């Protein structure tokens, strides 16, 4: 690879145009490093250079996002850089948004690696960290040189397809990706190291941070249960014989529907179970064990009015969160259309 060409994106302030008064500045292209770009240039000495700086006002970007993005993409495409560095934006929210957004667009449309930098409190961090490499900075440019160094180091590895180290080593926010690696020590050794550190009170680093839980609010209660229609939904992988909707044993992305006869419930059809997580012998013997249609039918007209005559089923084994949510939304749409009031969700 020859000289590495880098484009630097800055806002009106770091670009030297002014403060808030110049936040409406439209995109400007300068064929040289500007402001903190000098530090970028210094770091690149011998391997590359800053071939251009794009300056854009934070308000201009925020209020004309589509137009600004088109213009900026055009400017970058014309330069054909190997790498784009944006910011660092520190705590500035609009600047962080612009940096994160433009990096994401350049990566997606121009396939050029990008790195930006901002503080953990910058809303741009939460918004873009999964998709863009964001180096963690302090709240102010006090350590600007260090921040630029880290950003360039990450950027160069991306450009040269070198293996990027862990977030804590390289200084970027973890992106919520997991990569399989073969380490130096067995998990047995690492577990004992970690328990000793924890018990002694010396620092340790968890290998898997537990993700935050999204609390799903409960639906409001059924106002008149005696008039209500209740449906049965299951993730136990029950399907009609032949598995017409091809529900897989695990990693499901879809669901299937099983009709329920008012008079004979689930009998009159034969069934299969597609689910790696349990022994299906008992459910194949009597599917009412998984979806209690028999009990629900015998209860019609008592506590509730009726059982919805369709059972919705999928396999809940190793379902990804996104797929689970998508399946749930699709089933919910059918339930709403059928004016179902409540659901009993059965699992294994």
């Amino acid at each position, binding site marked *: 690879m020859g000289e590495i060409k880098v484009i630097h994106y800055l806002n009106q302030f770091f670009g030297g145009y002014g403060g808030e008064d110049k936040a409406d500045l439209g995109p400007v292209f300068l064929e040289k490093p500007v402001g903190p770009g000098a530090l970028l240039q210094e770091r690149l000495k011998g391997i590359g250079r800053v071939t251009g700086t794009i300056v854009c006002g934070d308000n201009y970007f925020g209020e004309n996002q589509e137009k600004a993005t088109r213009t900026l993409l055009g400017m970058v495409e014309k330069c054909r850089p190997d790498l784009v560095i944006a910011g660092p934006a520190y705590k500035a929210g609009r600047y962080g948004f612009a940096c994160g957004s433009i990096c994401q667009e350049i990566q997606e449309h121009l396939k050029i690696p990008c790195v930006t930098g901002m503080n953990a409190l910058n809303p741009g961090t939460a918004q873009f960290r999964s998709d863009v490499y964001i180096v963690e900075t302090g709240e102010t440019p006090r350590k600007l040189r260090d921040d630029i160094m880290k950003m360039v180091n990450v950027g160069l590895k991306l450009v040269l397809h070198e293996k990027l180290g862990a977030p804590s080593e390289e200084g970027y926010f973890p992106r919520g990706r997991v990569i399989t690696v073969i380490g130096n020590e067995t998990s047995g050794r690492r577990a004992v190291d970690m328990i000793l550190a924890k018990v002694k009170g010396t620092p340790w680093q968890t*290998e898997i941070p537990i993700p935050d839980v999204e609390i799903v609010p409960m639906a409001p209660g059924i106002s008149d249960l005696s008039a209500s229609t209740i449906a049965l939904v299951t993730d136990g992988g029950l399907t009609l014989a032949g598995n017409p909707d091809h529900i897989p044993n695990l990693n499901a992305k879809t669901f299937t529907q099983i009709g329920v006869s008012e008079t004979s419930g689930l009998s009159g059809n034969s069934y299969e179970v597609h689910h790696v997580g349990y022994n299906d012998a008992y459910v194949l013997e009597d599917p009412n064990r998984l979806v209690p249609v028999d009990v629900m039918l015998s209860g019609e007209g008592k506590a509730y009015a009726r059982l919805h005559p369709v059972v919705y089923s999928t396999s809940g084994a190793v379902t990804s969160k996104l797929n689970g949510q998508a399946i749930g939304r699709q089933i919910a749409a059918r339930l709403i259309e059928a004016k179902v009031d409540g659901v009993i969700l059965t699992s294994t």
Partner: protein
Amino acid sequence: MKENKLRLLVRVIEEVEFGPKTCIEGAKLIISKSELTDLLAQDPVFAKVEISITRPGDNVRIINVSDVVEPRFRVLGNDFPGVLGKIEAVGFGDAYVLRGVAVVETNVLGTALYRGIIDHSGEGARFTPYSLTNNVVIVCQPKDQSVDKYEYAWAIRRAALKASVYLAKAAGKSEPEFIEEYDLDKVGDADASGLPRIGYLQQIVSLQHEDLRNPFNQKEPIVYGYGPLPSLPTLLHPNEILDGAIMAGYGRGAVFSLYSLQNNSFIKELYHRHGSELLFSPGVLTIIVPTSMEEKDRVASMAAQLAGSVLKLDGIVISRDWTGAGETTQALLCEKMEDRGIKTVVTVRGASADNSLSDFVTIFSDKADAVVSCGNGYDTVTLSPVSEVIGGEVFRLRSGVAIENLSGKFSIQLVYVVDAVNFAGISRVTTMVS
């Protein structure tokens, strides 16, 4: 006072080949193919038994692996109590070990719950420890292709264990290269003061896949042979786990091999530091993972009680089995232990097919702040082409799909690479969050 010391007399084996008589010459194990084959073929379930030797660097793929066993022979006898030996406590005395040799059990019906692949060369070899061992591969064809899958699993289990003892017996009364001593009592009370008491919890198996009406499922040897499994947490001496008292159950060997239990890395590491940095609690908490929520609450509460009031632990490593039920139980155990002031490390495996952190585990407690990853079972590795495939004609994934070109190059999830993701801590496969 009865001895609780286990001594493994390790014979280091570097080469294995077939020969006229089973014996050890220096670092070479010679196996009489006919004698071993005849021994295993006695089982009425089998029509035919084939033994192969595969070696590090061979361009060979072993498929349908249902378990791996290290050759061991207890001088006091009684190997694998309840399966081969009579039911008596183990975990003490001398046992010969052939280190560098692995007996590989295959299930040619393809019905092992977690069936796996061992590649001796190429990319896949990096992920399994058995690319580096000399493997004695046992392939047993049943007389009846429609034999009950549990009956067949039971038969191949017994065959692998018999082979393990038969081979280790070749060590005779020879001099071991070295001796591994497992003796918790070596550390007296005086040395113990000031050291943190660290324990270990092992989930043995989950009940969710069992069909206990099936007589051969009932005969599945797990804890000292077969029989109803304890639904209450219990204590085992760590040496019992190392010495063949427990197994992970039929067909779970691809992720929790008997070999890995015999060489349990959590136990070995705790032993290494016993008396110097920590006091390894003599009671390993063992649980069977139950299926109902109430039973999970019960087993977790009782285990935490034992850990706190009886074992008086300062910290504990909570390991697991493969299943989601095991993971839920792990989370409960972690919370209840931490609530009692016992620090925990939780060892997990990932279930993320698309490399996302949010799908890695279903543990959501903020008390699980010290997590070790044993690898992501759903990440893929691309296996390199090989010249030879042993262990059957078909290898089917858990989705039901069969691998098309078995000797070719194909991508497969890590759960199918034997002990790449392992719950006795022996693997170095892990996860970087990026």
